[in-house]
């Protein structure tokens, strides 16, 4: 009996591994694309900073009392 290093099983597993690689790369691309679109849809990319729940005086409109207090 000859010993074969490459069995049909190995090529099938290779196909599965490549398939999974493609799926994972597609997922990364999907999340990246969604992020770009969502940020661009905000109109002003600085609005993205308002999602971190930290008061940033620079993001407040200029003529509100809160801006004045924050700047004092």
């Amino acid at each position, binding site marked *: 009996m000859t010993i074969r290093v490459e069995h049909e099983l190995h090529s099938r*597993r290779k196909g599965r591994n490549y*398939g999974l690689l493609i799926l994972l790369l597609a997922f990364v691309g999907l999340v990246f694309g969604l992020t770009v679109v969502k940020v661009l849809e905000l109109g002003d990319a600085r609005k993205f900073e308002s999602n971190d729940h930290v008061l940033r005086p620079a993001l407040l409109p200029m003529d509100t009392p809160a801006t004045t207090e924050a700047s004092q």
Partner: protein
Amino acid sequence: MTDASLPETTREASMGDYVALLKPRVMSLVVFTALVGLIVAPVPVHPFIAFVGILCIAVGGGASAALNMWWDADIDRIMKRTSNRPIPSGRVQPEEALAIGLALSGFSVVLLGLASNWLAAGLLAFTIFFYAVVYTIWLKRSTPQNIVIGGLSGALPPMIGWAVATGSITIESVLMVALIFMWTPPHFWALAIFVKSDYGRAGVPMLTETHGRRVTRNHIMGYMIALIPVSMAIVFTSIGGWVYLATAIIMNLWFLKACYAVWRRDEETAEADSFAAERSAFKVSLAYLFLHFAALMIDAALRTQGIGSF
């Protein structure tokens, strides 16, 4: 490692077996109707969000198919048509199908919610639940009306597509669902009459086997008549237009004629010509649904040019 140690493990799944779990052919109808629901909606959607939305709906449909194959593995093994599916043939383990089904369900619902809105995500979750639990686990083996009620899950995609764009449920999306819902019984039963199935052997109550073909013919005619007002009602909504009106009139007359031919004949006549009328009605049913939704899409395109609407 030698060949001698491998024979039992060569049944290991390939990538194609996992794809087959998602029933890609069924997915095409889901994608098409969801796309139409999204395109005819009055709110424009960013093309990438639309792509992700349709992808999530397709993956959600595939996930429910995997759950269906997990639950139905026992009857799939008995029936000739399904005996070569990944689980009954031993290439995929039932636990794997369950895990893939649950993981893809969660993935598609969460991603759809993040990409569009949570109404669309909720509708997708309901669709998966309805197909996997209400239809597959509960209805399929308990009533000959299984495909009527279970058909709701196949009818919901245009409503999800509409919700992706608008974030709401309106009369237009309800009527698109109703159109597919009422179309499913005559479409499926026309097929059930001429296809030799072994549902009876597997213990699945199909109308053709529990009540006979005569009753099935009556049901086809009844649902066809009920389908007409649903199809025509869409004309009077914001998505109706001249192209849809013309298509609906022609296709309703054509499908009605085909169903009437199925209804009026007896078994001897049907068997004599190898169920020619039933085969014809099935083909007309495919054209009926495709052309209705294609017409909606054409009217939507014409509306953007300022023509086609009433």
